[in-house]
């Protein structure tokens, strides 16, 4: 089985992001970057599937040149091949351009199953998996909390507002996995050393026949960025053993008891 996992390098989610006041692009300078923690679940899901059914995991990423570290981490976890599409012309691309670039790279590579996170932890648009599926003309089994392949049938438990649905389709397909779908492995020292000799393709938009695609103002543009109004400061007390009374009084004041 040929599994392609989409990954993204993002600013460390434990730091508060900033938009550049003039370009309205994410400030990337001087910010720690990491493989999106959500993507680790996708890489792990892919590795478990090829572990059970045979085949290989290829990771594909679009982003600045230093995004290579995110691809290398996935290789160190056990993926067989990496693809990084890096192109100044793609800076600030929106979800649709991102999906077009990733879909073109995936089509070029060939696939039985594409795995993504449900959304990136920095952008949160949450529609790239569906767009990739549409561009590849395959089903999108989204928000999966479990993924199984049984012969040529793909089975997922798909998150819903009330619980989950059992959803089935054939392959090829796109699956987006929720955080918590599995326990991502840590790269071993052997894995980290081995990653350096694994094949790694570096592509531009032109290599994918997508010259002129994307950029920060294609399709949409940010017209204003303002600090959000903050809530008024509340009263913070140390629990002296009677903190519960303060809460009960607060609830009584609000007439909820």
């Amino acid at each position, binding site marked *: 089985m040929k599994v392609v996992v989409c990954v993204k390098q993002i600013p460390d989610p434990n730091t508060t992001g900033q938009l550049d006041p003039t370009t309205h692009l994410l400030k990337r300078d001087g910010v720690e970057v990491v493989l999106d923690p959500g993507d680790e679940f996708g890489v792990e899901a892919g590795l478990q599937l090829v572990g059970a059914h045979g085949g290989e995991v290829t990771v594909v990423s679009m982003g600045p040149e230093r995004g290579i570290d995110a691809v290398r981490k996935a290789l160190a976890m056990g993926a067989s091949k990496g693809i990084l599409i890096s192109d100044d012309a793609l800076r600030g691309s929106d979800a649709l351009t991102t999906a077009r670039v990733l879909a073109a790279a995936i089509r070029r590579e060939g696939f039985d199953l594409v795995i993504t996170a449900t959304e990136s932890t920095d952008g*949160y648009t949450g529609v790239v998996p569906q767009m990739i599926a549409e561009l590849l003309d395959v089903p999108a089994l989204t928000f999966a909390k479990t993924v199984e392949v049984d012969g040529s049938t793909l089975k997922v438990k798909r998150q819903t507002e009330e619980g989950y649905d059992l959803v089935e*389709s054939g392959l090829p397909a796109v699956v987006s996995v929720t955080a918590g779908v599995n326990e991502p492995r840590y790269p071993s020292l052997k894995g980290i050393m081995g990653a350096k000799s694994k094949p790694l393709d570096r592509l531009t938009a032109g290599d994918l026949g997508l010259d002129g695609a994307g950029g920060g103002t*294609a*399709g*949409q543009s*940010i017209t204003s960025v303002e600090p959000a109004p903050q809530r008024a400061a509340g009263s913070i*007390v140390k629990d002296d053993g009677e903190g519960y009374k303060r809460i*009960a009084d607060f609830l009584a004041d609000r007439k909820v008891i």
Partner: protein
Amino acid sequence: MALDKIWVFAEVAGGKPAPVALELLTKARSLGGTVEAVAFAPDAADAAAELGAHGASTLYAGTDPLWGELLLGGPAADALATLIEEHKPDLILFGMTYNSRDVAGRVAAKLGVPVIANGLDVSDADGISVQSSVFGATQNVATRFEGGAPAIAIIRPKSFVAEPSGGAAATVTPVTSPIAEKHKSVRVTDRVADVAAGPKLEEAPIVISGGRGLGDPKNFELLDQLAAVLGNAAVGASRAVVDAGWVPYAMQVGQTGKTVKPAVYLAFGISGAMQHTVGMKGAKAIVAVNRDENAPIFKLADLGVVGDALKVLPALVEELQRRRS
């Protein structure tokens, strides 16, 4: 530039429109022009009265029984694209729900138009813009659609308050385009409900949430006890404990979970990561209990108690029982 035609994509289950569809119709009315709804469900036409009462003049309804058996995204995007070509809406509003995200993403890719997601408001003052909040609600951003109709906006539930317009039932226009064969093998074979009894998380006037600070999954029982004594309360959770498998995903409050706006939100052992606060900062009042006095949740709290949630909770339950009796 006034908008001529706005559509709201409505999810319908059991003949009832999802609450977010009524919220979006209420907003759409204020933007002017013709407001219409689109729904794909075997009983979609049953929602015409309620959708009409919130401002939809027409309901384009796909009522093939297959809509109840297939994963919505693929076939709904095809049918919607056909309708869009015929009727040319300027703007389509979707709720930020699992199925609507699927449909919005696929239809946008099919038509080659941009999507703006995570919206909290939408305006057409200077082109169509969507307001959203980023970086844990520390900054508000306005994003404008640049060319390519329709504009597709995905709006978080509870961004608007649904208000009836007093309109008559929407005129039902059947959607006749057939569902393509390729979609018929993508089936929902079972639907499982995972939510506790009592009021729904999104609708409860009081929400009590727990996080890592509760130490152990079994301590969620303390939240259930508090909910029972308060009545009208639902129990939620942070992403950390959902990911750890303590409680079902359906209980998650936050960016990837539910958005709640209760009268009172009580957070026990939740640090207040941005991922969580985005889903609860709209509460009228916030009470937080956490051992770490530097926890970001205290920046939002009207009342913050720095202490051990496992000590405060049983004492609070007892105190409320005493005051009740």
